[in-house]
């Protein structure tokens, strides 16, 4: 009792529910929910709608839990970087211990519930995703190597594979392609951000590619990763989840993404500083729209096939 009173008097104010919710990085969670949903819906096996909904919720909570663990571990650098200073821990709304408890508690709950709701393969991939993001990426790679987000990007790429596994209980070429799309998309997406937020990462001593290898090299790598991404993004058109519609949309989106990446790759820092990183900010935005649009196209393609439109088939 006495210790509870002391704790309450020591803290500036009690955390509100919204502060804990913010630990789960709701914006990142929306991408996870969407891609997992697409993986689930386009799978060739039907799932009871309520079980599907509950399973996607588990994936979202699991992703949120790994975000809370990330905020717990990175609280020291989040206090330094302008982009992250307003997060719940650096702003003093939630303690580090609370974030750890939320992260561990929700991780265990989400994996256990997904195993019971759907199957243990999907729960296993979710557990691995949380481990990969919290331990492999956050604790190990992020502060060690400029390849941090190249390898760490795998964590963000698993959700459509989990969605597919929820429905089918297996892994297939289609789910691996959806994984590869997000995996290859992550470096150009994050490096565009890292270029126009370079100062933040320098201050926090995080070896992002522009910090470690310079912006010229990063710009070249953005281009080559986007080139490599293109055939992977188009490939699903020739699988069971693809068709003519997806082929046309994925080619069009890839051209737009390639164009933005090309502009960024041909500039230097002087040109970027002159227009306040307009091209880099644009690439970052285009990359976000690109991924959402690509997965929406997979979803529409599946709906067209279900509705029986022959021209939607290759």
């Amino acid at each position: 009792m006495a210790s509870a009173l002391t704790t309450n008097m020591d803290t500036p104010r009690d955390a509100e529910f919204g502060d804990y919710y913010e630990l789960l990085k709701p914006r990142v969670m929306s991408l996870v929910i969407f891609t997992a949903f697409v993986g689930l819906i386009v799978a060739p096996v039907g799932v009871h709608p309520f079980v599907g909904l509950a399973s996607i919720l588990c994936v979202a909570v699991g992703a949120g839990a790994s975000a809370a663990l990330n905020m717990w571990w990175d609280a020291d650098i989040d206090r330094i970087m302008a982009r992250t200073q307003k997060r719940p821990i650096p702003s003093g709304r939630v303690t580090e211990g609370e974030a750890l408890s939320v992260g561990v508690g929700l991780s265990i709950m989400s994996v256990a519930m997904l195993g019971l709701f759907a199957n243990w393969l999907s729960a296993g991939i979710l557990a691995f995703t949380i481990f990969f993001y919290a331990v492999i990426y956050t604790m190990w790679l992020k502060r060690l190597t400029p390849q941090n987000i190249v390898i760490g990007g795998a964590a963000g790429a698993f959700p459509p594979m989990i969605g597919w596994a929820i429905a089918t209980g297996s892994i297939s070429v289609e789910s691996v392609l959806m994984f590869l799309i997000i995996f290859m998309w992550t470096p150009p997406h994050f490096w565009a951000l890292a270029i126009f937020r370079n100062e933040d990462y320098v201050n926090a001593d995080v070896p992002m590619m522009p910090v470690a290898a310079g912006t010229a090299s990063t710009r070249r790598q953005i281009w080559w990763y986007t080139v490599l991404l293109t055939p992977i993004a188009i490939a699903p058109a020739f699988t069971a989840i693809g068709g003519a519609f997806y082929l046309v949309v994925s080619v069009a989106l890839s051209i737009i993404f390639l164009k933005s990446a090309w502009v960024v790759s041909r500039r230097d820092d002087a040109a970027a500083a002159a227009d306040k990183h307009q091209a880099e900010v644009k690439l970052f935005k285009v990359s976000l729209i690109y991924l959402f649009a690509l997965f929406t196209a997979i979803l529409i393609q599946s709906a067209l096939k279900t509705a029986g439109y022959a021209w939607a088939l290759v």
Partner: protein
Amino acid sequence: MGAGLMDGREEHELHKRRKGRNMAVGGVLLAFVVLLFGVTIAKMGDAVIKPDLAWGESQ
């Protein structure tokens, strides 16, 4: 004891904030119960909803 150190207004705000948090946690727990109930019903499926049919098929 600790509350005596604060003036009435501060105590009121503190309780209000905690009440809001407790209500939200309660809401999440309730939603969790509904979720478990819904999944249980969905997973039990035809075998329980149509016991007569299952019996008839086995004859």
